[in-house]
């Protein structure tokens, strides 16, 4: 049986989104590091895996996939019977999960990613944070988190009673924002704060963080 290969970079939130899913599903995989500092992601070899020249990409036998949220969905459905249940087979329950997966992709991530870049990644790679971008995006994230606070007051997880991809997709960006000035946005919202603490403490996520310590 061909091995699953996950191509990407350990500082990339999208790569981490895929890695944590593979760990949640208790799947064996090989991590193939893509050296973005030398532009490896823009070279022909990698473009054959992801024509947008972005990380991550997944290979499994003949299957090649890009876009982290398409990869996680494929893995969650294909291995529905293994590891943590991350989706629902019931179409009504799955509909709600799909809604909050789109909320993460369309409402939360565009704003959170800007803050992650300025406050989380730029310091790591020796670049200077643009304070204007932080000031512009913190209020936007606050508005999104107000909606989350209401939702999580009525529902243990975003998709319903159970932890699903809808929650999991947030973990990599959340981790970056914890420990930055943006953490106050979570701390001041009790339901969001409890949810963040819960989902970032999961063993599968701790395994992804351990990968960063090794590489």
């Amino acid at each position, binding site marked *: 049986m061909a091995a699953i290969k996950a191509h990407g970079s350990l500082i990339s939130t999208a790569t981490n989104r895929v890695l944590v899913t593979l760990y949640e599903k208790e799947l064996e995989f090989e991590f193939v590091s893509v050296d973005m500092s030398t532009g490896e992601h823009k070279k022909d070899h990698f473009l054959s895996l992801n024509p*947008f020249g972005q990380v991550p990409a997944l290979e499994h036998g003949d299957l090649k996939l890009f876009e982290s949220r398409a990869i996680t969905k494929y893995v969650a459905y294909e291995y529905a019977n293994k590891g943590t249940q991350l989706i629902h087979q019931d179409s009504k329950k799955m509909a*709600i999960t799909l809604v909050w997966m789109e*909320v993460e*992709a369309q*409402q939360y991530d565009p704003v959170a990613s800007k803050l992650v870049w300025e406050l989380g990644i730029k310091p790591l790679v020796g670049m200077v944070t643009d304070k204007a971008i932080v000031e512009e995006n913190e209020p936007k994230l606050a508005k999104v988190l107000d909606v989350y606070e209401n939702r999580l007051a009525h529902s243990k997880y975003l998709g319903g009673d159970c932890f699903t991809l809808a929650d999991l997709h947030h973990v990599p960006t959340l981790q970056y924002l914890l420990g930055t000035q943006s953490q106050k946005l979570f701390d001041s919202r009790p339901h969001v704060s409890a949810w963040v603490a819960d989902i970032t403490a999961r063993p599968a996520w701790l395994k992804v963080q351990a990968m960063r310590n090794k590489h």
Partner: protein
Amino acid sequence: MATPVKVYGPPMSTAVSRVLACLYEKNVEFELISINMSKGEHKKPEFLKLQPFGQVPAFEDEGISIFESRAICRYVCDKYADKGNKGLYGTNPLAKASIDQWIEAEGQSFNPPSSTLVFQLAFAPRMNIKQDKVVIRQNEEKLSKVLDIYEKRLGEARFLAGDEFSLADLSHLPNTQYLVSGTDKGNLFTSRENVGRWWDEISSQDSWKKVVDLQKGT
């Protein structure tokens, strides 16, 4: 006889029209409920119960209430798998994964620059909002880079996810329709041979023609 599903929002909204195209493609009967956005109806408590971000569309079907156009489309395709275009969201897991990949590409790479251009060029003038030339130029450049990638892909396959028209192509219809028919940026699509050929094909789908008629009727 099933109750028609309900879609809330104006058909001229790109996200609403994405859902309508999917419902027509799947032959699912719907009731379109008007939301008067110029009067701020979408920000009122009644509507916020259906869509907490105060955006259109919202959607109801047999006791469930959902939002986000791409989630609604996926739900419709899963629930009504045996209706209308059965292959719209793939008939096996690998096909579905490939379609999801290109729906994500649409949502993450195509939509941000194209929807900004649609707002600046098609909606801002109607709303007496001043256009931002810098924003237009920056997003035209971003969209061009994305369309270069699409040009290569559509030289390898007839449609984005393979040989058949899918939900991935459908997702692109709303923004592209505005840019090609309602602005001077249509050449971004028509000057690229494969992209132009793809646009002609996907915009000729009966389901999309019905949506365009609905948009013209309002």
